[in-house]
């Protein structure tokens, strides 16, 4: 990671720490997520017996909430980045400190990931421990980390696309929320992907976050990733390869799109206006 990205991440952490009320509110919202989805998990069940033994819907929901909250809040921060810098009047300052928009997004993403990982872990880890969904086997930690990293890359890619749209169209309205809702469905956050119609399996199964979420849940609940999960991967090694390749292709494409839109905004003279 480029040193400038680290410097900018440090700057955002410094800034975030100054807004204590916002930190408190974020923490309460995250705690609320665990309570809300915990209740849903407790009273509902997935149809068709697609979940293996010991894999209650409550565990399914709350492990998903843990990973999702960490990454979705980071997504929110990244897509708000340009609007925030512009409203603070610091956009020119950032550009004049030789920071590219890509570096700004990655810096913001690192800072937000660190912040939300900590907050989510404060509420999430005791909750998962309490419901018996903290069965991580130390040997599986590298795969667990890989699944988190690939999911993170996918989410950053999504935010880069939305930042690119902001650069071109300035205000993109509710599309940011819609993208998140569609993603939540597609990756199987609300219910197992196996419950989707079979025709959709090839699409959902290629999203790195679907694979990452599946592996993450398996390791947290069962202690190991299953060798085969219908609708996600036919073998674990194939799943890992798919996850790495698709996340790499996705982030590369989104960075190319961002570079193009930044050039357009510089040409139109609208890079600092939102």
């Amino acid at each position, binding site marked *: 990671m480029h040193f400038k990205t680290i410097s900018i991440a440090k700057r955002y952490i410094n800034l975030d720490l100054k*807004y204590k009320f916002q930190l408190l509110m974020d923490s309460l919202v995250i705690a609320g997520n665990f309570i809300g989805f915990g209740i849903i998990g407790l009273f509902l069940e997935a149809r068709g017996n697609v979940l293996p033994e010991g894999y209650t819907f409550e565990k399914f929901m709350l492990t998903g909430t843990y990973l999702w909250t960490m990454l979705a809040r980071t997504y929110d921060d990244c897509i708000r980045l340009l609007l925030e810098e512009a409203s603070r009047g610091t956009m*020119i*300052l950032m*550009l*004049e*400190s030789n920071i590219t928009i890509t570096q700004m997004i990655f810096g913001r993403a690192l800072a937000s990931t660190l912040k939300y990982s900590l907050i989510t872990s404060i509420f999430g880890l005791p909750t998962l421990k309490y419901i018996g969904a903290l069965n991580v086997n130390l040997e599986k930690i590298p795969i667990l980390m890989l699944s988190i990293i690939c999911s993170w890359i996918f989410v950053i890619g999504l935010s880069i696309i939305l930042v690119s749209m902001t650069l071109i169209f300035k205000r993109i309205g509710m599309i940011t929320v819609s993208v998140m809702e569609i993603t939540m469905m597609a990756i199987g956050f609300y219910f197992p992907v196996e419950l989707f119609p079979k025709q959709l399996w090839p699409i959902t199964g290629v999203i790195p976050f679907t694979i990452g979420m599946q592996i993450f849940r398996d390791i947290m609940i069962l202690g190991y990733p299953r060798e085969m999960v219908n609708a996600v991967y036919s073998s674990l090694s194939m799943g890992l390869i798919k996850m790495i390749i698709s996340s790499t292709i996705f982030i590369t494409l989104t960075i190319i799109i961002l570079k193009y839109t930044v050039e357009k905004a*510089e040409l139109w003279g*609208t*890079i600092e206006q939102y």
Partner: protein
Amino acid sequence: MKAVEFINVTKTFKSGAMGKKTVALKNVSFQVEDGEAIAIMGPSPSGKTTLLKLTAGIYRPDEGDIIVYGRSIRRDLNWIRKNTYYVSQNMQLNKKLTIKEEISYFQEIFGNKMGKECIRMLETVGIYREDYGKRIEVLSETQITILKLILGLIKKPKILLMDNILGDLEYKILEETLEILRSINGLTMMIVDKNVDVLNNLCERIILLSNGEVIDVGNLKRILADYPYKYDIEVTWKGNIDNDKLRSMGYQYKVMGNTVRFNLKSEVEIEELIRKLLMDMKNIVKFQVSGLDIEDIYYWRLNR
């Protein structure tokens, strides 16, 4: 060596993907020598800020080329961005951060330490090392202006682009700041400012812009020497202004709402004006001697 060369540069703005186009600069060409300080003058909007932002690489030209120390903006944009610093009154700092945090960030990004001139500049506005822990939100506007300037100097730019940054500084601080800027070896400066003193102190030459076109590149000292009016007096009246009475006074003037700015040639004219105004004393709210107005000089030059 030429520091900056604009070669037939045209710049249009487009408000978003579906927005309409506005021309900001048309076929602009000029040159700035290495180490020179040049003023850019023109009424608003005439393309002054656009010209500075193009030089800094914040915007890209539609047509033509900008050469900075022999490098084209079309090929070496990153190099140009690294070696220029654009600072304006509109640029904000993160008010929640401390002076130290902001300085450390810039030092880290640029890989440079803050120079003696920066420390001296901060001290002129009463910011000493023990104050570096203060949040930017508690600083005065003058202190923030100087901080914005020194953050740029940490970058060690070859070209400093100042957009109305110095004009509002108090006289003593302004003098010291200008002296420090002049002492930086080889620093090329392009300056837009409403304060004639700033331009007169730093710049030899001036670029005159009108509707996005360069209409003249002249010698600032000569223009100021030729400008017949040496004093500006602003008088604010209660109620409506009697235009006939103003005309009958026989001075060059400009009406701005309830305020009239008189351009006067000598101290004798000031005395005369005061005598005439004394007769209308009860209707006068405010009377002040102001600095020469850059727009008055511009229009006078244009009419010549």
